[in-house]
């Protein structure tokens, strides 16, 4: 049993008929994920390469027993898509890939879900979650992964791949890799994922990738210090990023000294994390700890 997803995952994709949803949904299926349905209002009754399309999440769940939804809906409708999936009791995990959702929509959705639902939301603006050899819900290229015992959690999509690649190159496999996304209000935080890695018997060590802005890494450092018994290797991107400049992610804004790469590295080191200053050194650092 890996965290979030495994062989029992029955995936539906909201937006499977769009170009991105189709490409990645079918890639997930090709890597062994049980893709059972797609949802696009108005296209119910059609299919994408044999995957049935429904007009609503409720219909898709009733017909296929889907328990996980991946959201590929455009930004203007993505918040509504997440709420639709959350309203269906059969769904217990939502992975929102969509980039560019308005911050107010995200804040409303996060707080509403927290108050009304037990569903887990990963993302938005994230690469999703992959348990190598078992299941892939997202856009992480499964070819670069290797089944194993290192958990990876990251705020940045492409840096997640970089970290996985460095591990795989050294023959170090991964239990589950979770991209939590770089937006200001992610559905799942570092702490949420670290908690699951700590409880997961298949995870022996953790790689954590952070970046400048916000205080999520500092919160993670406190959690690691107080609750994590497994070894952690960390990397923070943005050491040379100019202060006060916005670097693409709404999340990556330096806000006071607590948001700087240096402050985050220091907090992680104090919590006993091995911090590397070059992502290509992640594999070597993990190898030393295992």
């Amino acid at each position, binding site marked *: 049993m890996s965290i979030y997803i495994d062989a029992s995952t029955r995936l539906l994709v909201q937006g499977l008929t769009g170009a*991105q949803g189709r490409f990645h949904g079918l890639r997930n299926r090709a890597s062994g994920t049980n893709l059972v349905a797609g949802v696009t209002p108005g296209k119910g009754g059609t299919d994408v390469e044999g995957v049935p399309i429904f007009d609503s999440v409720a219909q898709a769940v009733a017909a296929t027993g889907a328990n996980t939804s991946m959201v590929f809906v455009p930004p203007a409708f993505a918040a509504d898509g997440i709420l639709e999936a959350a309203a269906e009791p059969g769904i217990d995990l939502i992975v929102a890939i969509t980039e560019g959702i308005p*911050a107010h929509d995200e804040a*409303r959705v996060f707080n509403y879900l927290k108050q009304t639902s037990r569903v887990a939301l990963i993302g938005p603006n994230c690469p999703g979650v992959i348990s190598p050899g078992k299941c892939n819900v997202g*856009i992480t290229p499964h070819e670069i992964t290797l089944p194993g015992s290192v958990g990876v959690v990251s705020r940045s999509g*492409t840096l997640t791949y970089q970290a996985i690649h460095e591990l795989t190159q050294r023959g170090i496999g991964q239990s589950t890799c979770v991209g939590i996304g770089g937006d*200001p*209000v992610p559905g799942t935080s570092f702490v949420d994922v670290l908690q699951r890695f700590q409880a997961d018997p298949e995870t022996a060590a953790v790689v954590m990738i952070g970046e400048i802005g916000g205080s999520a890494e500092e919160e993670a450092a406190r959690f690691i210090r107080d609750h994590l018994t497994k070894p952690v290797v960390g990397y923070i991107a*943005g050491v040379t990023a100019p202060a006060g400049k916005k*670097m*693409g992610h709404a999340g990556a804004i330096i806000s006071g000294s607590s948001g700087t790469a240096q402050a985050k590295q220091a907090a992680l080191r104090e919590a006993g994390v091995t911090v590397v200053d070059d992502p290509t050194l992640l594999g070597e650092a993990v190898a030393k700890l295992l």
Partner: protein
Amino acid sequence: MDLFEFQGKSLFARAGIPVPAGRVARTAEEARSAAAELGGVVVVKAQVQVGGRGKAGGIKVAKDPEEAFAHASTILGMDIKGHTVRLVWVERASDIAAEYYVSFTLDRAARKHLAMVSARGGMDIEAVARETPDALARMHIDPVIGLTAWQASELVYRAGLDRPTARKSAAMLQALYRAVVDLDCDLVEVNPLIKTSSGDIVALDAKVTLDGNAFFRHPEFESFREAFTPDPIEEMARQRDLNFIKLEGSVGIIGNGAGLVMSTLDVVSLVGGRAANFLDVGGGAGAETISNALDVLTHDPSVRSVLINIFGGITRCDLVAQGIAEAIAQRTLPWPIVVRLDGTNATEGRAILAGIQSDRVHPSATMRAAAERAVELAR
């Protein structure tokens, strides 16, 4: 998007929040006629997207149009923390009885909005927060419910705002929060919010940051850009949907994903070089995007070599390689390109690179090796 004060005030006026009457002026002559139209004493205020303009001499009171002309002449062209003043806002002077501070923003740690209110407006609010934290009332707002009447009232009384006008101030807080939500603002800060001697509550300043992700709901916000004077290369990149920031070095950087690009800047610096820019092509970039990105860098004379660092997820390496091939076929690029491709369709992408008939392209197997090569080629 950070707005100028006058743009923020136009949004406030639209949302029914009282602001003083005023006019924008591009020249001292325009400032003089603005003062004449408004009549009486006016304030001439530098329009810059940075704080601290009062201390820098960017805000002056003028008792008549001639004085407004003189102040505008001094303020226009002035440099305030690296920002050149190109516009002034001339507004009717207010009769100030009390100055307050109000702001609404997202508290990322709490994942809720945060209201901050103080009776000590008009001064450095960070110093107030540091030295007398109790003078700054803070309250989290549940984004699902919004700022309730009791919360607005509690903020007003806790911050110690004037009691006889407490209801008006609380109503103002609710109106401001509604504007934050309706206009999709990341930040609204009013310093000072004033009480006039006749007991009216008026926004004397407006710092507004709009959420660019929400512009599909407010297409008219695009026109705010007309008042900006962006860097020409940054503007070219923006029009092509590329996330570009000019930096000081000589290694041009193109990558996918803000995290990987930031990390690339760090690794270039670790191996002894300096990045000329931050350029994120975003997720799912096709051949045209890559070709556009290379084109943008040709307009920066400080670039000596280019490092393309792609780890494909939603982005496909074959399309990236195609974009490089197209850019090279279309024009002579002035510098060597080091390319590192991994992830989705990397094998196909590397094959396309190998087929490019040019000594300008240097494929590289790892991020570190690519950074080293690019730094060496920039020397």
